């Protein structure tokens, strides 16, 4: 049985243009009821985990501009420690096998490189999580 309230998705990305584009893209293309909340850093995302998001799209390089910020792997670990059932999709500018392997090791659902296919790949990953009921806690 699918839940009736909106499916809650967090987007965590420090590039405001990329963040807005991803939010608008998902709102325009996802075919089920979603509520999307955006964050410019991982720390604010962590503070909102009490809202019980089903999915978090998390940029790997969150501390490129603000060195005090934690990077994506550190935030991923904190999310998974807090609630291992949240599906986390990691985004990265580079197609980096080491980063991909590390993210999977720490429990990410998928790793998406920020190329021209990134948006459709994120959409497909979210659809798979929704379709197979991986949001059920």
């Amino acid at each position: 049985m699918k839940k009736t309230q909106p499916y809650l998705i967090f987007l965590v990305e420090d590039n405001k243009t990329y963040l807005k584009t991803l939010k608008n893209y998902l709102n325009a293309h996802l075919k089920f009821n979603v509520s999307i909340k955006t964050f410019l850093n991982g720390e604010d995302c962590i503070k909102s985990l009490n809202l019980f998001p089903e999915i978090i799209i998390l940029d790997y390089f969150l501390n490129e501009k603000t060195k005090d910020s934690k990077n994506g792997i550190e935030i991923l670990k904190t999310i998974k420690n807090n609630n291992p059932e949240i599906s986390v999709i990691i985004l990265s500018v580079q197609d980096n096998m080491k980063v991909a392997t590390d993210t999977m090791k720490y429990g990410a659902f998928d790793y998406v490189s920020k190329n021209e296919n990134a948006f459709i790949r994120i959409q497909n990953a979210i659809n798979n999580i929704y379709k197979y009921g991986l949001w059920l806690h």
Partner: protein
Amino acid sequence: MTTNESKIDKGNVCDLNYLSELMGGKKHLIEEIMDVFLKQVPEELQSINDAIEKINYAAIKGVAHTMKSSVSIMGISVLTPILQEMEDLGSNGTSIEKIKELNRKLILLCNQAIEEIKIEKSKFI
């Protein structure tokens, strides 16, 4: 004037076709993203200028890295190699004079992109 006035002219630095495809041609969604980009770019150029003045290689690398994502969305492919070189030089912590030279190109091209996007945006009204 061409048959399609909204199409980006040859020689422009922006190609908004990718963004338009992503948003399914929905103008209000494209316009929202343009607004964010138009606000973000001057802030980032200022950050790079400040970092160059302070010879802060880590900050140069960080801002150049972040800018790559947004310029790719706006189809400003001419900026990608410039930003990549700035990021690499920032990462190596060398060649501030070369970074300054790249930054001059970056500023010129970003200003051109901003003007082009403002023109495209004005066609939505």
